[in-house]
């Protein structure tokens, strides 16, 4: 059995099970660390950098969602420095692609937009990249709009780890990275896709949506997929 350890989070002593991430320990102790790529029940990706925390004795900031809690660790989950970095990460997501909240199906139900609001991002300091990106409407029920994708890879992980279909991957490199269906083909041509819609339910932004929804109309049930993930975890 994994042993119990204690760590300090924002000065408070917390008990944790060895192997738990800082994020999990914080959450279990009622601390909210901002996150975008993290999703309960699937493996962590550490891609968004919103969950960065300070660990005493470590110079660089560490992502809470991928860093295991260790005996005696002292973690700080909020500080001016962390807020600065989190804002920066968000701003870079906004400039990378085309986010036009006013005409987005996810307006008002978007995790990226909500985080910007809670972290006080009222404008973006950097010039917008304004890339020309495709929208894949080839699937009979769903749409993938690359303009809104932040490459969190939640879709990749739920499809692989929960549905077991592994339709999605992230192809390309750096700024050219894109979510791709199978070997980069139109989603509608995918043989593996079961049309279960789990990827659509967990996408934090307006990138994966159901057809037929207008501006502001796309709401999701992330928690339903998380529940499935928990069941699957318990069964295996």
């Amino acid at each position, binding site marked *: 059995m994994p042993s119990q350890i204690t760590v300090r989070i924002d000065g408070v002593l917390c008990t944790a099970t060895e192997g738990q991430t800082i994020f999990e320990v914080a959450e279990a102790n009622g601390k909210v660390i901002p996150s975008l790529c993290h999703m309960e029940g699937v493996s962590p990706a550490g891609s968004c950098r919103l969950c960065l925390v300070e660990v005493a004795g470590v110079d660089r900031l560490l992502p809470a969602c991928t860093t295991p809690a260790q005996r005696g660790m002292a973690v700080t989950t909020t500080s001016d420095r962390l807020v600065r970095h989190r804002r920066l990460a968000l701003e870079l997501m*906004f400039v990378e692609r085309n986010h036009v909240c*006013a005409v987005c199906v996810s307006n008002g139900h978007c995790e990226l937009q909500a985080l910007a609001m809670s972290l006080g991002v009222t404008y973006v300091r950097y010039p917008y990249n304004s890339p*020309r990106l495709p929208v894949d409407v080839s699937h009979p029920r769903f749409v993938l709009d690359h303009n809104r994708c932040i490459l969190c890879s939640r879709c990749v992980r739920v499809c692989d780890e929960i549905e077991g279909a592994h339709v999605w991957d992230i192809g390309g490199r750096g700024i050219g990275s894109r979510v791709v269906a199978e070997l980069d083909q139109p989603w509608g041509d995918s043989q593996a896709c079961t049309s279960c819609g789990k990827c659509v339910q967990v996408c934090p932004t307006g990138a994966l949506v159901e057809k037929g929804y207008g501006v502001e109309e796309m709401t999701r049930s992330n928690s339903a997929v998380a529940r499935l993930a928990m069941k699957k975890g318990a069964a295996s």
Partner: protein
Amino acid sequence: MTKARLATTWLDGCSGCHMSLLDIDEALVAVAPLIDLVYGPLVDAQEFPQDVDVAIVEGAVSNQDDLEKIRLIRRNSHILVALGDCAVTGNVPAMRNPIAVKTILERVYVEGADTGKGIPTEVVPALLKQALPLHDVVKVDLHLPGCPPSARLILFVIKELLEGRVPDLKSSARFG
């Protein structure tokens, strides 16, 4: 007490933010004695005046005319507020940014026209390469995002500025 000189205008916007401003309704009456509205769609002034205390600007900077206007507004104003998403992010006017200006103009004025095909060279100001948020062109003192920002939020901002405070918009203003 001297009144604060307030100016409002829009560049490449839909006037929705100004609608929201008017939606402040009766609360405007309480603010009115504190301000002197020196420029805007509701007053007669033709030229943007000198020595404006607060200028509230809606819309993105999309063409040559917008560019000249915003530079003048900046020169003549102490505090410049970017009102709404078009002024803050570029928003809908900036959806053309991934496409070359020439392609857009040809699509609209040549392919899309039934009569009088041809890209206009007079009267209509030349488009900039991209539609830009105000702060890409001039220094902006306060950003109030929203499409449009709510009347309540606009009133809050005006009141705070009149009291000489910088309004804290954290957790209250959002894009969209």
